[in-house]
């Protein structure tokens, strides 16, 4: 056996993961998202002016050196409002994505691994949610129940878990048929442990990617709700409500509605790009090179 060992040691370690540089577009997306996260965390600190300071005499003016993106009808600085508005804009989508991922992935994992009645119940639930016209239900429910923020989060979580269930169930189903899962079962590991420790790490790429896509979908849903004046306290500086407030003044200060619109689109696009990249990197991590 000693000869064998010599040979093994001489072998260059092939296990090192090749670090792949993300493509240029993804790098840009990462940079942009870093800025957004900075605004999310430290918005009030880095905003150049007080976002709520009114100047009724000034009113709405187009961009100038004093106000880079101009002001709204109350004379508030648009740039500062956008920066500070990052938090109310994104907190909701993040809660929704986290909630939907936790609930949806657990249910999907359960359905994919256990099969049988568990799968039937979970899959029918997903089918049911898919059959609902999502945003319409949200609008009606929030409208009828009086439009609370938490209510909006809860409803959007419920509507988003269907995706997670479908995607994660599919991935878990593939893994559950592999012999390593059978081997874990013969070791008498609990189902919870098999799902959590054995299957989950192998479908992490799928889970994370659908988390990011959920985030995008929730961002757009929330912005849509905010545009309709739902799910967000009135007067808050969320991008969606700024967009709708600014519509009327599009000829006076176009950036009032254009800037939040561009921000929403850029954030959503960046998240999608990064989602793709994360999937590619993670899913090739354990594969044979």
């Amino acid at each position, binding site marked *: 056996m000693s000869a*064998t060992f010599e*040979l*093994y040691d001489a072998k260059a370690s092939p296990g090192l993961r090749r670090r792949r540089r993300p493509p240029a577009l993804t790098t840009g997306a990462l940079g942009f998202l870093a800025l957004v996260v900075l605004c999310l965390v430290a918005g009030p600190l880095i905003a150049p002016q007080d976002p709520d300071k009114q100047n009724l005499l000034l009113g709405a003016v187009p961009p100038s050196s004093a106000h880079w993106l101009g002001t709204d009808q109350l004379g508030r600085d648009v740039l500062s409002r956008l920066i500070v508005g990052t938090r109310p804009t994104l907190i909701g989508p993040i809660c929704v994505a986290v909630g939907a991922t936790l609930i949806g992935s657990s249910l999907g994992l359960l359905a994919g691994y256990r099969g049988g009645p568990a799968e039937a119940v979970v899959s029918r639930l997903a089918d049911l949610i898919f059959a609902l016209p999502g945003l319409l239900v949200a609008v009606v429910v929030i409208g009828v129940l009086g439009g609370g923020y938490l209510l909006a989060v809860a409803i959007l979580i419920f509507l988003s878990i269907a995706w997670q269930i479908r995607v994660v169930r599919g991935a878990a189903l593939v893994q559950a048929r592999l012999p390593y899962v059978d*081997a874990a079962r013969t070791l*008498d590991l609990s189902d919870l442990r098999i799902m959590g420790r054995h299957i989950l790490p192998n479908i992490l790429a799928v889970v994370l990617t659908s988390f990011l896509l959920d985030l995008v979908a929730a961002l757009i849903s929330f912005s849509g709700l905010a545009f309709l004046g739902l799910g967000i306290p009135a007067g808050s500086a969320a991008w969606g409500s700024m967009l709708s407030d600014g519509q009327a003044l599009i000829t006076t200060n176009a950036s009032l509605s254009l800037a939040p619109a561009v921000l929403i689109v850029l954030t959503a696009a960046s998240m999608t790009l990064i989602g793709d990249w994360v999937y590619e990197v993670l899913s090739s991590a*354990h594969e044979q090179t």
Partner: protein
Amino acid sequence: MSAPLSDVGTECRLRPQLVVRGLRVTAARERQRELVREVSFDLSAGETMAIVGESGSGKSMTARSIVGLLPSGVSAHGSVTFAGESLLGARPRVLRSIRGARIALLLQDPFAVLNPVQTVREHILESLPTQVRRNRALAREQVEDRLQEVGLSYDRVGASYPFQLSGGMRQRVALAAALARDPELLIADEPTTALDVSAQADVLGLLRSLTQRRGMALLLITHDLRVALSASDRVLVMYAGTILERGPAPALMRAPRHPYTLGLLLAEPPVSHFVERLRSAPGDATSTAEPLAGCAFAARCRWRASECVATRPSLRAVGEGRESACLRIGRIAGEMQAELAAPSGGSPPIAPGNAPPICRFEAVSKRYRTRELFGRAREAQAVREVSFEVGADESVGLVGETGSGKTTLARCLLGLTRPDSGRITLGAHDVTDYRRLSSGERTRVRQLVQVVFQDPYGSLNPALTTRATLGEAIRHRRDGTGGADVEQLLSLVGLPAWSATRRPVALSGGERQRVAIARAVAVAPQLLVCDEPVASLDVSVQAQILELLRDIRRRLGTSLLFITHDLSVVRQMTDRIVVLHRGQVVESGATARVLDAPTHPYTVQLIHAATQLAG
């Protein structure tokens, strides 16, 4: 149509038809990794030659570069000429006109090669030359002829879809399609690897007779020296991208002229008798990642000297029609011959007498239901009334071909599925239905039996390191405390300590299988179920794993339930065998008795196919 072809044939017979010179294949990614280094050979019209090598030897890349079908990111250099026409670097149009028409390719997997929604008739039709296809009557006649040539009847299979055919029949259809345009050269890449033994012998026989009848050249790519020796005139042995030896098949078998060839010959466990110790070169087939200074095989060679590491050997003539790349062949030939002739016999250890059985199957049956979109549910009887037992400290072989139900039985025993009727007992426990066991009882049962699966790539969790995998198993061992730790387990299965920190992706197939075995024995089971544990490993690694399993049985006294289709493996590993055919036991008894004097026609047929292949 056949007249011009035969003209070309006679013209080419005078000189080699396929000439490969200094072929190098490199992968552009990963620092210009060399997959094939300086390979040269000739193939005359009507000649059959086999390229033999284990995984990573570059044999498939060599074949693929001839037909210009290299994967993206891989490029070939050197020269390949076919009937005077240069193939390397030829324009795609030129290549297309040669590929299929003059050089045909037969691939390993008859399941993936055929289009599942096309009938057999359509497959053959599609492969016929355009002018034949336009004429309906002629086309129909041609399809009939082509199918008949490979031993299939148009009336029976013409309208069938691939899934309705057996593996052997599919490979025949693929062969008929490959031959539909009367190629001068057929390249067959592992054509029998995915088939059962009897189908293997059939397809090889068919290949042999077809090449003879048509005067067609055959380049056979295989990892199986038995297949190569039985189906070709000349054999070329490749290792780590280089040719180590070439020569006529019979001479190569009688007197190998390279230590690696000798290793391959010895590693092949014989069907005919028990071998005391399965010999093989240590280690795994070297990957071609590192640039080579000396002989590619030096690291695993027991006759290695300083010159082997220092100088890169080239092929030199050693005797009539034979070449070897071994620098020291002159000095070690005698020793090698002695090694080959050394008595490999020995008798199997005496099977223990009347120890109480550890595991008993009583009239176990299992059906599978398949649902279809339209129409009634179908039922397939996987196992019918199977009864047998495994004694304590005994090794029992469960032998059968694909679909014989052997894996279903193992899955029932392991509680991965439930039998429809019958009874399975394990120790003192009734394990027919694992759901009826209390959780404490189930834990005890799980520690009685463990399993090693066939596929070393799927049986380890890709996300866990070896240490995590083994650690988890150790925590579930019988006594809960003490016992082997990860390091002890690794040394038990012959793995170096560093492998503890590796994930499966960084381990070779043989290493992974060792980890899987370590995981199974970590629980100290009394019965180890081995489901084709060496079927997807290279020959030399196969012998190592078989030796390891024997060693574990000797040291730990574990009983084995050995599931395999390979009779030579059964001969080496088991005391008793149970032969399954279509879900039923057709014969059982002491291994030596059943293999030497089979009584059931099916067993006779199996043994005949296996020995035919062995030559």
